[in-house]
């Protein structure tokens, strides 16, 4: 019980710092292997694999350790360290595949390839089903042409009642000539970043113990207690590929989708293999899955929420996540949730853990009862995907466990966040709060330019003026201000109350001004802080939608027909100068978001929406320490074009950050 909780909590810890977790050995997976999804074994020579049959132990979530036999990849970075299941062998249609097997087990072993024709062998000695590698360091080779695309199983052909139960099985994937984003033919196209393998098996720990201790192995008395997917039992199935927690079980089984959209309209592909001896009725919650093939052959496609996969069988499914209901927190009439949400104080969770975000809408987080630990990252949904033989949804008869994983549905485009707060660094608030930036609607966050006053009259020619306060004006760099009908450029003394100015700029004429005259900035600067962004998030997409209006009072927006304000949206790079580097409008830490679209942009009185992309790791933009998880986005708008620009207010409608969660 405690072990399982520890594992659940560590899912979050892993999300926070998986790069830091030390591993016991170099790893069975190729460098840079994705954390979620099917991982192909990369052969050194195309379509030649060097496998070694060896022994090892696995961990189960109830704290048990079971002795296993399996195939490992001798060419992996860890040089054939034990792994279960065997390596996923991926080849192309028509390739000649060679599998060299070296055997360190105490009895002869072999590999058979159900579904492949014309397998030839070399070396080894003849066995019941095929040529075998002798015990204790024998060798044998197999060769065949992968003539038909599909999902296949490879397994031992020697003493199968023992060797298959002990773990000698793995997956063989044949990709069609059409391309790696097709399962079979043109009708089976899928999103190649959403390819999943679920290899089912069964473990009777008493039989494994008999092999470990050279005891009596009574196969007729088999009683399976563990029901792995990809060699792990729930909740270990949710851990990343290659997790250091499970060094001998490298493959995770989390299935992760985003809803289909016009631009993201290909389904995910789920390849299932049953290496066990029992039939497993597999059951997705949420959408139906569409079965397209069995045993590496297309079948008339059918949709299922329960499909039994037989012993030795493979099945391929396409899974689309369509969102026909469009439930959203601010929906049009008729699209509200059909039932009221329960009060969060009335929610209870098993063992105080949950994958629920506290809010039923996709992409939103809400409130959970005190003391509940949530594994939810950004408001994504989780659905069980499991064997509906409920004794298999358990570890040694204790639920929940066993042959189960989760289907994770991320918000469209990825996780997203909204500003939790705003901070004006050059200007004053006209109206609105950070909440106005959460939705594209009629609600705006409005900022007026900063003003101060002249404590004394201004002559027509003076080039040094004092001001009542410099707060809110740039502390460095040249900038323009307006007094009455004159635009002045501040060229020195920034940050102090004595400014050096150039008179009569931008097509205006120098003039005298009375004592107490108002000085207005011709720029607005404010930034939004988004919080809760997880460490390891990648591929930021920053979206800002806003406009500028010619009035600084009132609720209507006066149009700006010319001299359109120039807008530059920047993001804080915390590594340049820490928090201080993003504290004022001209601090060194602000980085202009890269084109496209190019900046600055001219933004008038009609909302302009722009999205900027920062590919790859976003660690520089996510705060740490007391700013942990914080992303800051600055909106700088200046109106510095001729002739005679007047002051304006900045109206922000929507600011969002979309990212790939770790």
């Amino acid at each position: 019980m405690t072990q399982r909780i520890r594992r659940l909590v560590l899912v979050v810890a892993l999300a926070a710092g998986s790069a830091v977790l030390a591993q016991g050995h170099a790893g069975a997976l190729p460098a840079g292997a994705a954390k979620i999804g099917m991982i192909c074994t990369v052969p050194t020579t195309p379509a030649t694999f060097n496998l070694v049959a060896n022994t090892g132990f696995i961990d189960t979530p109830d704290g048990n350790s079971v002795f296993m036999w399996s195939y490992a990849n001798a060419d992996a970075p860890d040089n054939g360290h034990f792994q279960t299941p065997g390596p996923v062998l991926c080849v192309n249609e028509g390739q000649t595949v060679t599998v060299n097997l070296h055997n360190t087990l105490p009895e002869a072993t072999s590999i058979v390839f159900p579904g492949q024709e014309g397998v030839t062998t070399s070396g080894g000695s003849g066995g019941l089903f095929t040529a075998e590698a002798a015990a204790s360091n024998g060798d044998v080779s197999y060769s065949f042409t992968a003539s038909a695309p599909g999902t296949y199983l490879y397994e031992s052909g020697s003493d199968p009642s023992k060797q298959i139960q002990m773990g000698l099985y793995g997956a063989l994937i044949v990709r069609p000539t059409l391309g790696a984003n097709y399962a079979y033919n043109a009708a089976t196209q899928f999103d190649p970043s959403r390819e999943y393998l679920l290899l089912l098996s069964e473990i009777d720990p008493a039989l494994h113990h008999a092999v470990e201790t050279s005891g009596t192995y009574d196969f007729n008395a088999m009683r399976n207690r563990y029901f792995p997917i990809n060699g792990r039992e729930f909740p270990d199935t949710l851990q990343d590929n290659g997790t250091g927690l499970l060094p001998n079980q490298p493959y995770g089984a989390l299935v992760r989708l985003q809803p289909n959209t016009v631009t993201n309209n290909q389904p995910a592909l789920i390849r299932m293999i049953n290496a066990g001896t029992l039939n497993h009725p597999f059951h997705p919650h949420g959408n139906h899955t569409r079965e397209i093939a069995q045993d590496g052959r297309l079948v008339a496609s059918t949709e299922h929420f329960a499909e039994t996969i037989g012993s030795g069988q493979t099945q391929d499914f396409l899974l689309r996540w369509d969102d026909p209901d469009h439930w959203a927190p601010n929906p049009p009439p008729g699209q509200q949730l059909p039932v009221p949400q329960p009060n969060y104080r009335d929610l209870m969770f098993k063992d105080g853990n949950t994958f629920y975000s506290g809010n039923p809408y996709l992409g939103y987080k809400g409130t959970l009862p005190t003391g509940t630990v949530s594994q939810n990252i950004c408001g994504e949904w989780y659905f069980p995907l499991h064997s509906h033989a409920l004794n298999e949804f358990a570890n040694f008869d204790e639920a929940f466990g066993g042959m189960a994983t989760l289907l994770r549905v991320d918000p469209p485009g990825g996780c997203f966040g909204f500003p939790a707060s705003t901070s004006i660094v050059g200007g004053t608030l006209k109206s609105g709060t950070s909440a106005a930036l959460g939705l594209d609607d009629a609600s705006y966050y409005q900022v007026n330019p900063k003003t101060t006053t002249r404590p004394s009259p201004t002559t027509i020619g003076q080039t040094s003026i004092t001001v009542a306060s410099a707060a809110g004006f740039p502390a460095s760099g040249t900038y323009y201000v307006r007094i009455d009908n004159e635009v002045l450029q501040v060229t020195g003394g920034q940050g102090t109350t004595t400014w050096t100015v150039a008179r009569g700029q931008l097509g205006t004429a120098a003039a005298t001004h009375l004592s107490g005259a108002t000085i207005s900035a011709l720029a607005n600067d404010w930034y939004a802080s988004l919080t809760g962004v997880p460490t390891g998030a990648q591929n930021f997409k920053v979206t800002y939608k806003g406009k500028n209006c010619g009035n600084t009072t009132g609720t209507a927006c006066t149009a700006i027909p010319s001299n359109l304000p120039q807008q530059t949206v920047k993001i804080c790079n915390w590594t340049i100068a820490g928090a201080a580097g993003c504290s004022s409008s001209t601090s060194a830490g602000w980085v202009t978001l890269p084109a496209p679209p190019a900046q600055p942009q001219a933004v008038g009185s009609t909302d302009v929406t722009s999205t900027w992309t920062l590919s790859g790791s976003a660690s520089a933009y996510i705060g740490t320490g007391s700013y942990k998880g914080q992303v800051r986005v600055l909106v700088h708008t200046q109106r510095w074009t001729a002739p005679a620009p007047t002051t304006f207010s900045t109206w922000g409608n929507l600011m969002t950050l979309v990212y790939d969660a770790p």
Partner: protein
Amino acid sequence: MRALAFKKTRALLVLVVVSAGLALTSSAASAAVVSIELCAVPGTATLTGAVTVPIWGFDEPATPGDCSTAVASLPGPVLDVDEGDDVTINVTNALPAGHTIRFEVPGIDFAAGPADVDVGDTVSRTFTASAAGTYLYQSGGDGGRQAAMGLYGALLVRPATANQAYDSAATAYDVEATLVLSAVDPAFNQAADQNAFNMYQYRATYWLINGEAYPDTAPGITAAAGDQVLLRYLNAGFDNTTMQLLGMHEHVVARDARLLNNPFDANAETIPAGATEDAIATVPDAAAPSTNGFPLYNRQLHLTNGVQNEGDPTPAGGGGMLTFIHP
């Protein structure tokens, strides 16, 4: 191995046209009236040449109704009729006292009449073999215990076209193999009174094709490269049985004696208990995986014979529900 399908004696009667002027149309070529005699008798079976167990099995007596010379076979004899035949099966119960037989053939629509046969009695069951296919005949008596003792066998109804499993040309074959799959728990068979045996304790240890465990399933299925092999599977056992075929796919064309609208290829196909399936495997022009040929075997991995009391379950020479397809 009692896998031979031998034709039964046919009583061919000339149809007499009634003087009232009725013209009886004959359905297909050689639609005949057929009479089959069956005796249900106790006997023995020797498994893997070493273990002899009591069984109850069907046999066809030399003299109708006289079971004194009948010898129980495991499984019962293959019954072979043609589509359209009017068939009468006369079942005589020669089991020990207290075991009433219930004669059933799922998928066959018998004419009205008793199905139960008391010890010492004979009951006639009549039907028209209107649909070609593979059927499992069995006794459902004693709550399934009689089937566990061996009272089952294959009934084949052949279509008008020779060398086809059904009326569809897609079911043509060159070689035919009828495979009755079953299991034996010797402790159950040896019990003094099967009706007192606790079936929760039933644990089969012999796994059979046509009553034999490998290597006694030899000579296996003889077929050359290019041959279409019709595999008629009948699951007379108690659990889902998956048959895996190495080195070739099998094309599943029918289930429970009915053609599939969407036949499909498989290399591991599960036949539920009590069901029948028909698959056509095309022997490739390529090397077989093994010097023994193309393995066809139980993917529940019941490749063992008898009680397990050592470290290695599968005999090096092979065992259990296994056979080979070979030239």
